[in-house]
C-alpha cells in the first residue's frame, strides 16, 4: 500500500531484543493499517488463553493507513492488546501527534511482547531502536514523565511520547495510555497491559518521509475540507440555550442530519457542547443510569455544564495532528479552589457526564479538576465514573457502609468524596484498591450487581441505550463491548452511507420506537455502521470525521488517492467488515463468547424509567442481537 511503511517493529521485553517484520501488500489490501493491522497481527500471534497481564500478551501501537499523507483528520493512533478488563479483544484510540511519529520511525505499528524485569522505555528514531532504563520516570504522572522524557531527548526532532501514569503502573484494569499532556487512549485496560510489562513510555523521534501515491489529489481533498471547516460560523452566546434544544430533540423523531452539524458544535465548544443537550434530551445517563432529568433537577444541572462557561476559561484551542476542526483546548483552572494544577485539557463530554450528571454533581470545577487528576494518572474517566456512581448508589442504599468506604460519605453530589475516592483508586489504597479494576470486579466483591453498569466487563460510554437502541446493539455486539463509538442512530442519520454503499439503507424520518424492533433493516444499518467505523479506524481517521458523513469527509476518495487504488465504497465496506470479523474471531479464539455479552437490565429499561424523555422505554436488545 503506497501510503504505508510496509513493516512493523517487534520488541520482546523479556529478551530485550527488537526485530523488524515486513508486512505483505495483501495484508494492507485486506485490512488496511491501524486497528485492521493490529487485529491481523494479534489474532495470529497471541496464543489462545494467554494471560492478558502475562508475557504472551502483545501490546500494539498502530498508526493509520492514511496518517501522514496529507489527509485531514487521519491522525489517530490505536492501541491493541488482549484486554485484561474483559478477557477478550481490547483496543483504545487517541488523538494527539503520536500516530505520524510511528510512521516517521519507519513502521506502521510497534508490537511489544514479554515483560521487562525493571522499568524501561522504548526509544526510536531514524537509525536507532533502544530499550532504555526508565527507573527515574517510574512513579511520575503521565504529564510529568512526558515533559521530562521530552527534555531528556531534546535537541532535534520533537519527540512524540506515549506514556502511562500511576494507574497504569499500578496495573489498574481501567487505566489507559497518554500523550500530549494527558490525551488518553483510555479503553479496554490498555494501560494495565503496558504497566504489567513495566514499560513506562514509547518515545519516537523519527523524521522519515511518509509515502503517498497522489499527494496533490490528497491535498486538494484536504484543502476543500479545510475551507469548509474554516467557513463554519455560529452566532456567539448560543451555548447557554443548548439545554432547551435538548428538550426539543428528546421529543423529535429520528431523522437524516447534515454532516456539518457536529462540526459546528465541536468547532465552537468541543464535545462539552453535548453535555446540556444530553441531560435534557435523554442521550446522557443520569444518576447511575437510574433517573430522568426531572428527578435530578436536570435543567439546573444542564445550566451548570453550559459550554460557554468552559470556553471562558479556554487559553487556546488544541488541534490533533492533521485536524482542521480543533475540538480540544487548554483550560485555565487556577480559579478552581481545590486544584493544585493551573491548566487542564478541555474535558471530553464523556468525562463531564460521567463525573457530573451521572453522579448528580453540579459542580463544574470539581469535574475539571478530576479531569486533570485522571489524565495525569492515566485512568479511563468513563470506567471510573461508572464505578464511582455504582459506589454512591450502593452507599445510599446501605450495601456499602462508611467503614467499608474508609469513612467516605459517598452521597449523590458529594464531589469532595468523589475526588478522594478517585485518589484512592489511582493509588490502589484501601477501598480504592477494590474499585481500581472497574465496576464488575467491585460488585463481585461487595454486591450491588443491579447497580453495576458494565457490558461484558467494560463500563459503557455516556450515551443512553434507551434513547438509542442502535447503540445498545453495538455495545453488545462489538468485540470490545460497552464502547459508544461504533454506531448510533444520530451518527447513521448524518453519514449518508447509502451514497457509497449499495446495501446500506437510507436514513429516514421515523419514530424512535421503530428502532426498538428486530428488523432486517436495523440489522443492515448496524452492519453498515460497524463496517464504516472499522474502515475509518483502519485509515486512522477520527470519529468526528465519520460523523461529518461521506459528502463532507470523502473517505473513499481519500483512500484511493493516497493508496493509488481505484475501488468503490462497497469494496471498502467489505474491508471494514473483515476488520470487525477478525476482532470477533480473536474473541472466539480466546474463549470470549459474544453470545454471553448482555446489557445490564437497567440499560435495557427493565424496569423502565418513570419520568423524562425515556419514560416507559424498554428495549428488545436480546432479540435484536440474537446470534442464532
Amino acid at each position, binding site marked *: 500500500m503506497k501510503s504505508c511503511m510496509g513493516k512493523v517493529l517487534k520488541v520482546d521485553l523479556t529478551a530485550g531484543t527488537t526485530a523488524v517484520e515486513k508486512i505483505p501488500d495483501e495484508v494492507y489490501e485486506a485490512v488496511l493499517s491501524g486497528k485492521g493491522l493490529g487485529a491481523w497481527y494479534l489474532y495470529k500471534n497471541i496464543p489462545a488463553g494467554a494471560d492478558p497481564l502475562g508475557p504472551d500478551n502483545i501490546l500494539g501501537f498502530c498508526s493509520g493507513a492514511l496518517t501522514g499523507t496529507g489527509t485531514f483528520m487521519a491522525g489517530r493512533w490505536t492501541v491493541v492488546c488482549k484486554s485484561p478488563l474483559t478477557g477478550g479483544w481490547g483496543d483504545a484510540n487517541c488523538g494527539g501527534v503520536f500516530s505520524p511519529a510511528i510512521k516517521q520511525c519507519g513502521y506502521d505499528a510497534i508490537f511489544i511482547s514479554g515483560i521487562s524485569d525493571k522499568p524501561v522505555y522504548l526509544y526510536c528514531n531514524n537509525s536507532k531502536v533502544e530499550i532504555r532504563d526508565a527507573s527515574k520516570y517510574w512513579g511520575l504522572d503521565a504529564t510529568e514523565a512526558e515533559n521530562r522524557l521530552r527534555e531528556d531527548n531534546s535537541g532535534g526532532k520533537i519527540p512524540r511520547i506515549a506514556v502511562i501514569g500511576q494507574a497504569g503502573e499500578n496495573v489498574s484494569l481501567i487505566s489507559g495510555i497518554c500523550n500530549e499532556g494527558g490525551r488518553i487512549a483510555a479503553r479496554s485496560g490498555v494501560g494495565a497491559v503496558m504497566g504489567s510489562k513495566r514499560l513506562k513510555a514509547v518515545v519516537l523521534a523519527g523524521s522519515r518521509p511518509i509515502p503517498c501515491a497522489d499527494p496533490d489529489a490528497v491535498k486538494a481533498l484536504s484543502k476543500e475540507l479545510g475551507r469548509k471547516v474554516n467557513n463554519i460560523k455560529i452566532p456567539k452566546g448560543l451555548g447557554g440555550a443548548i439545554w432547551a434544544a435538548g428538550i426539543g430533540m428528546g421529543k423529535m423523531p429520528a431523522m437524516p442530519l447534515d454532516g456539518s452539524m457536529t462540526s459546528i458544535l465541536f468547532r465552537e465548544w468541543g464535545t462539552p457542547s453535548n453535555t446540556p443537550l444530553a441531560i435534557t434530551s435523554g442521550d446522557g445517563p443520569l444518576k447511575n443510569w437510574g433517573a430522568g432529568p426531572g428527578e435530578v433537577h436536570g435543567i439546573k444541572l444542564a445550566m451548570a455544564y453550559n459550554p460557554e462557561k468552559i470556553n471562558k476559561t479556554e487559553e487556546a484551542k488544541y*488541534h490533533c495532528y492533521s485536524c482542521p476542526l*480543533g475540538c480540544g483546548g487548554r483550560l485555565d483552572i487556577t480559579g478552581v479552589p481545590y486544584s493544585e494544577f493551573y491548566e487542564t485539557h478541555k474535558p471530553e463530554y464523556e468525562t463531564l457526564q460521567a463525573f457530573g450528571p451521572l453522579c448528580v454533581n453540579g459542580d463544574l470545577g470539581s469535574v475539571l479538576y478530576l479531569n486533570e487528576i485522571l489524565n495525569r494518572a492515566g485512568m479511563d474517566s468513563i470506567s471510573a465514573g461508572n464505578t464511582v456512581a455504582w459506589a454512591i448508589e450502593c452507599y445510599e442504599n446501605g450495601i456499602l457502609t462508611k467503614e467499608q468506604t474508609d469513612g467516605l460519605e459517598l452521597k449523590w453530589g458529594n464531589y469532595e468524596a468523589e475526588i478522594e475516592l478517585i485518589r484512592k483508586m489511582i493509588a490502589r489504597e484501601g477501598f480504592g484498591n477494590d474499585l481500581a479494576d472497574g465496576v464488575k470486579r467491585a460488585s463481585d466483591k461487595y454486591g450491588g450487581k443491579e447497580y453495576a453498569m458494565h457490558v461484558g466487563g467494560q463500563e459503557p460510554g455516556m450515551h443512553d441505550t434507551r434513547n438509542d437502541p442502535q447503540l445498545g446493539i453495538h455495545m453488545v455486539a462489538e468485540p470490545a463491548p460497552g464502547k459508544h463509538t461504533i454506531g448510533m442512530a444520530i451518527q447513521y442519520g448524518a453519514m449518508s452511507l447509502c451514497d457509497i454503499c449499495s446495501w446500506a439503507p437510507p436514513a429516514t424520518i421515523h419514530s424512535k420506537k421503530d428502532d426498538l424492533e428486530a428488523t432486517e433493516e436495523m440489522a443492515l444499518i448496524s452492519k453498515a455502521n460497524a463496517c464504516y467505523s472499522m474502515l475509518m479506524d483502519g485509515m486512522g481517521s477520527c470519529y468526528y470525521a465519520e460523523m461529518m458523513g461521506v459528502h463532507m469527509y470523502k473517505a473513499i476518495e481519500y483512500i484511493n488517492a493516497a493508496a493509488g487504488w481505484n475501488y468503490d465504497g462497497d469494496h471498502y465496506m467489505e474491508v471494514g467488515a473483515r476488520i470487525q470479523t477478525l476482532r470477533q474471531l480473536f474473541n472466539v479464539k480466546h474463549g470470549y463468547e459474544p453470545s454471553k455479552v448482555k446489557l445490564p437490565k437497567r440499560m435495557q429499561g427493565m424496569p423502565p424509567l418513570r419520568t423524562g424523555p425515556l419514560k416507559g422505554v424498554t428495549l428488545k436488545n436480546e432479540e435484536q442481537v440474537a446470534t442464532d
Partner: protein
Amino acid sequence: MTAKKIPSFHYKNCVSCSICVQACPVGALDLTRPGKSGRYRNLFPELVNERCIGCALCAKSCPMECINMQAVYEGE
C-alpha cells in the same frame, strides 16, 4: 552574503493542523503563535529556534498552501 530559505506563513487560510510541525525533520516549528482575531483562540505555527535547514518539507506538506519559502540573508 549567504542566502538561506526559511518558511514564511500566511495565516489567513491556516487551520492549525500541525502537519507542517510534524513534517519538520529538525524540530524548528511549533504551534505557539496566538491568533490575532481571537474568536477560536487557535495557535498557529512559527519558527521557534535557529535549527531551520531550509528543506521546505513544511511548505510541501501544507494542504492549505499557507507556507512559502523566503530567502533571508545572514545578518538580516
